[in-house]
């Protein structure tokens, strides 16, 4: 039942446009992430949904009900703050029991609920502890437990893992998803960490400068980025500049800087237009020097870094552009710095975009 829907939502702080005409639907029981660089408006969007700040224009719906004028305490949401905001003057038990109390639940009933959620987050021993006696991981769980105990159907999480160290973070993120799924909750999870968003979300909205630039499943975003920004922000990409030499019904031949010609598929580009070819590092294959197929790029190994499972090569192409190539370390042959190398890729796996007016660097920078 509780879909969350925002329509034409705009919010300004003075001259800063924090959210610019945003439209978004999050489905019932979905684990949804808002992903984007710092300052793009993620927290602002989340606070608007929670009712902690008021929009300048636009509409917000939870389920079928328009909630713009509903105060936060009546929106049936749970909000987990980046700093957790556990009440310092209350024990763990009192913090978690706060929601049931202010919502006037029956005493017996609320006791059962508090026990259940504390069981759920595996923090049943420290009932009498005050927040300043807990570790970051514990505080995070209590913050979630507190939101759950208040009966939230929608969990709003503002960088809930941001304060934790990398190892704990990786463990807890799967627990978060599992918990939301087990309890049939809708979750909106704000993060600027793309690997976090990719690994736990059903769908992701990528934001940039107050706008949502693409919404999709992690796979869709990775396989079909709708813009250079998304291609760069999600996963890793090589960007090669060139211009359209031939255009034939979406089948393009691009002449890259330095003269090499590659084939790719893309719509909306005409002859002589400037273009950018985007190729994921793992898409590039290493070929024999005698290779005579399509899409040949030749270069020299400039840098090697060994990353355990993978080896990462930086290749200087004949055009003086650099590309990154990633290969499994144990199943493929190794190269040395200075080795000549011939690369290729399948046309279907590359993406073509028109060269951005603002410049490539400006477009993809976060």
């Amino acid at each position, binding site marked *: 039942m509780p879909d969350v829907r925002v329509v034409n939502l705009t919010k300004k702080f003075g001259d800063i446009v924090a959210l610019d005409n945003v439209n978004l639907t999050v489905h019932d029981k979905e684990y949804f992430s808002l992903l984007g660089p710092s300052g793009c408006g993620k927290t602002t969007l989340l606070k608007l949904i929670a009712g902690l700040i008021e929009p300048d224009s636009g509409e917000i719906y939870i389920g079928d009900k328009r909630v713009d004028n509903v105060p936060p305490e009546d929106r049936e949401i749970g909000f987990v703050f980046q700093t957790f905001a556990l009440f310092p003057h209350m024990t763990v038990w009192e913090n978690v029991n706060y929601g049931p109390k*202010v919502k006037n639940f029956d005493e017996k009933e609320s006791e059962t609920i508090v026990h259940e959620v504390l069981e759920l987050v595996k923090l049943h021993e420290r009932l009498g502890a005050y927040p300043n006696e807990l570790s970051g991981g514990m505080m995070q769980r209590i913050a979630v437990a507190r939101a759950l105990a208040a009966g939230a159907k929608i969990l709003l999480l503002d960088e809930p893992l941001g304060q934790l160290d990398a190892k704990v973070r990786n463990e807890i993120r799967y627990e978060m998803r599992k918990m939301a799924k087990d309890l049939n909750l809708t979750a909106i999870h704000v993060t600027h960490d793309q690997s976090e968003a990719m690994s736990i979300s059903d769908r992701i909205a990528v934001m940039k400068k107050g706008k949502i630039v693409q919404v999709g499943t992690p796979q869709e975003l990775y396989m079909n980025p709708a813009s250079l920004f998304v291609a760069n922000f999600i996963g890793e990409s090589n960007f090669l500049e060139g211009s359209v030499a031939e255009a034939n019904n979406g089948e393009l031949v691009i002449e890259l800087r330095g003269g090499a010609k590659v084939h790719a598929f893309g719509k909306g580009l005409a002859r002589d237009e400037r273009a950018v070819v985007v190729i994921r590092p793992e898409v590039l294959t290493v070929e024999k020097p005698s290779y005579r197929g399509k899409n040949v790029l030749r270069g020299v190994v400039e840098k090697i870094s060994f990353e355990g499972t993978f080896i990462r090569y930086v290749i200087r192409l004949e055009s003086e552009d650099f590309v990154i190539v990633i290969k499994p370390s144990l199943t493929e042959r190794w190269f040395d710095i200075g080795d000549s190398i011939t690369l290729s890729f399948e046309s279907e796996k590359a993406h073509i975009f028109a060269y951005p007016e603002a410049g490539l660097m400006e477009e993809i920078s976060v």
Partner: protein
Amino acid sequence: MNSRKINDALNALSSKKAPKYTTYLAAIVLFLALILLPPILGIFTKFDTMQQILNQPTLMNRALIAIANSFMIALLVSAFDVIAGVPMAWFITRGKSRWLNIIDTLADIPFIVPTAALGYSLLLFWNGPEGISALFGGSLISPGWLLITLLHFTFSFPIVVRVMVGALLDYKMEFERASRTLGASPFTAARTVTMPILRPSLIASYILAFARSLSETGATFIVAGLFENGPVFLQNIKNELAVSNPPLYEGVTVFTSLILIVVSLAIFAFIRIFGSRLRLPIRGFWPSFERKLSYKKAEASRNSITLIVFFLIVLIPSLFVALPAFEALFNPTLSEAFSGSGIWSDYWQSLVVSYALAGIVTVLSFVIGLPMALMIARKRFGKFTANMFDILVNVPLIVPSIALGVSLKFFWQNFAFIPEFLLLVFAHLAITYPYFVRSMTAAFERISLDMEEAARTLGAKPFGVFKTIMLPLTKYSILSGAIIVFTRSVSETGATLAVVTTLQTAPVVIVNWVKQFVPATPLDIGLGCGILIVLSLAVLLTLRFVTRGKARY
């Protein structure tokens, strides 16, 4: 060129241990020698005079009743202050009106108006034939305990508002937001989360208002009528006995002062120790009732009541004296005043004394207070020393100022060569110093140690850190601390009355006029108060102007 050399020299000096610690030690020694020890020693040298009062049961009874009155009024008034001041602070910090800035400034007015002028103003408003009494045909409230209570409320209310506005601005909204998302209505969130977290500020504001009510002498004397509280009693006794029976006068004074001091220290200690342990008395939850209190209508009526209380009980009575002052502008009183004839020559002299005194006291508070504040905030001599001085520095704050003045007088009169003006400086220094150190300690504590350490790792010497980090970041607090010291000194009457015999400060002159110890017409008094108020307003507006927009850090 030259200042640069001085700067280098200070930098070099500051990185050596000896000069650095000498500065701190000097500040401590001066504090002990000028502020803390003289009143204590003063009262102990006169300890034996107390026998005088033991065989005077009626006098003793009168003293005890007066003392009890003081504490009753102080406890009651500061409770009212908190009840009315918190909604006001809430309104100022959370409201959306464009007028809030002005209301914020207005709230400071009763605080900076010298209390003697305030007392006269209230007398006119509540009791005089032209004030609110006119509506009721006759005097609505005659001098006595009720008028004293109203008066104390008027000048201590702004203290609570100031402290709570600061606390609410510093408060991390996230806690309250979390409470709202968990289902609490705004009122419940404020009561169960915000107020408990701000408890230290609530306690501090209560103590400050309490101490202020206990100390105030000049204005209280004006509105007291036949009623006596501690300070009024001490002043009456001085008028009755100082000449006719000096030993009895000393005995009564020592007795009363000592009890006032001991009881207020005990109350202070009690609040300090138990205030922080006490979980707020009301821990229940009444969601549906409080929800009703939270929304538009209830909020609007709460704000209206707050504003009505503020305007009707605090602001308008404070400024009511403007009426006769205004009238005086259009008749001979004005030219008399400015020609300095008759009683006015004393007035102008007292004004010079008051402002010179306030200026000197402000500079001295700054010079010996700043190192002390730094020492306490940064625990330069260890945690224990810092905590100890943190408490000791506040002692003069809670001792009724007239008792402080009396004890000081007993001590310094052993040194006959000390001129009266210097005596006044010492008395005012003792009273104002704690305000300055308090506000500076708090300001230094707000600067995170990281910032200082970062500056050191970037190559700044200790003096450089102080100059480039600590001072710029605390500019606002220094300025507002200085203003508090200055206005407090201009207002101070109790300690002044206790230590002087010939010199007069402005509030003393006003008290003498109102009490008709000197023949002054209502227009004279009105104009005299009006001039004081205008000068204080000028100080306040200067502060507002200088610090505009600087309170951000």
